[in-house]
């Protein structure tokens, strides 16, 4: 008796629907802002979508709510099974890179869910971006099931299911404006605290303009940069960032030069120079960091960028800060 219960519990199939509720949308919103980062989880296991039969397709995904919800909502009106792997709440692409969306977990999950007894076919449809972690030939050898890599985006699945062939367009990752915009909130959250500290410290020691300048340089890196990425010149993110940071710093330098007429001329000139030196590297550093969010920069390329530009960033920023301290000290002494 106990045995059959355990058996049934192990092989239970949960129900899933294609409807995205208000609660789901709230969860997506929080996830996008990096709030409760570890809690956007779906229970791993097998889910029935609609009224699947023994011949219905099986779709594999990660146990991150954004991944699972993108899949189930794309499959509206389609009867099938969703096999959710335990990726610790990480999306397919990152989990595959880490190996948690991987061959071992997939083979293991197939066994745990008793998938062999539930369907009569042997095909599994995986998201293409899961291929970084899953070796299709090994899955076949170890489980007998055949991995079929579907399109990159879940929304292309209905079209894909008609022919079981992905067009080149479905196979390509893209990084369009919307793809980049959704990444901005979490980037913002990451810089919020350091930005607030920099703004407060600068306000007291260097004044309002310097405080606003720090905020502008940081926001340029995390907000403007992702938006403007394809239109900024050169291929290197650091250079793109330096250019953007320079453009943002320019009005601050001009404002300082022309600004408060009561200040001594050399002090205004040095402050203008400080803005031009210290702001661009901040933006450039944040821009370089954004490589990790893109689906096209290679590790060896990022490493080359790092060795080429991080020293330049450190140097220009360092000179700017030292100059600022010197000016503040000289003026402080003059004033007292």
């Amino acid at each position, binding site marked *: 008796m106990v045995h059959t219960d355990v058996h049934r519990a192990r092989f239970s199939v949960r129900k899933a629907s294609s409807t995205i509720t208000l609660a789901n949308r709230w969860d997506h919103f929080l996830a996008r802002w990096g709030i409760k980062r570890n809690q956007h989880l779906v229970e791993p296991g097998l889910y029935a979508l609609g009224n699947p039969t023994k011949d219905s397709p099986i779709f594999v995904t990660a146990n991150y709510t954004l991944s699972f919800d993108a899949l189930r909502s794309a499959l509206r009106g389609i009867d099938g099974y969703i096999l959710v792997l335990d990726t610790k709440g990480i999306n397919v692409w990152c989990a595959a*890179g880490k190996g948690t969306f991987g061959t071992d977990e997939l083979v293991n999950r197939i066994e745990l869910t008793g998938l062999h007894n539930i369907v009569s076919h042997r095909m599994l449809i995986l998201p293409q971006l899961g291929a970084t972690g899953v070796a299709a030939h090994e899955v076949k050898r170890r489980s007998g099931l055949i991995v079929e890599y579907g399109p990159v985006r879940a929304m292309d699945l209905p079209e894909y299911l008609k022919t079981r062939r992905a067009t080149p367009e479905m196979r390509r990752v893209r990084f369009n404006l919307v793809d980049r915009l959704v990444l901005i909130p979490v980037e913002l959250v990451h810089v919020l605290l350091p930005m607030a500290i920099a703004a407060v410290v600068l306000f007291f020691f260097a004044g309002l303009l310097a405080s606003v300048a720090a905020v502008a340089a940081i926001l340029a890196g995390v907000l403007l940069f992702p938006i403007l990425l394809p239109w900024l010149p050169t291929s290197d993110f650091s250079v793109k960032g330096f250019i953007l940071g320079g453009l943002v710093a320019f009005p601050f330098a001009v404002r300082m030069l022309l600004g408060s007429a009561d200040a001594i001329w050399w002090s205004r000139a040095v402050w203008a120079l400080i803005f031009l030196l210290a702001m661009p590297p901040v933006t450039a550093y944040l821009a370089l960091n954004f490589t990790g969010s893109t689906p096209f920069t290679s590790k060896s*390329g990022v490493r080359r960028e790092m060795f080429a530009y991080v020293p330049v960033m450190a140097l220009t920023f360092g000179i700017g800060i030292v100059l600022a301290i010197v000016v503040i000290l000289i003026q402080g002494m003059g004033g007292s």
Partner: protein
Amino acid sequence: MLNSYTSNTLQYDPELCNNCGMCAIVCPHEVFEPGERTAQLAKSQACMECGACQRNCPTSAITVDSGVGCAAAMIRAALTGKKEVTCGPTTGPSCCGGDGKAGSCCG
């Protein structure tokens, strides 16, 4: 000039290829194309070193030093002198964090 992404670690030996076509299927940048007898390395420069082709190549005709280009993790490693943690398939902790307090690389 000003392009650090012109070369990468992707290596392909057509002599080992059995033309199963997997590399062309899994590549999100059309680096590989299906060929008549073997897969064709069409756009080597577009490779982002994700490693999907290597992992799904049953004859080990492809090798690539894979990992996401996570600058924050690399910079941390360079500064602290510790081993670089990446999102690579074989490493333990990573910038995509099991701990979830990850950097921006996992969106």
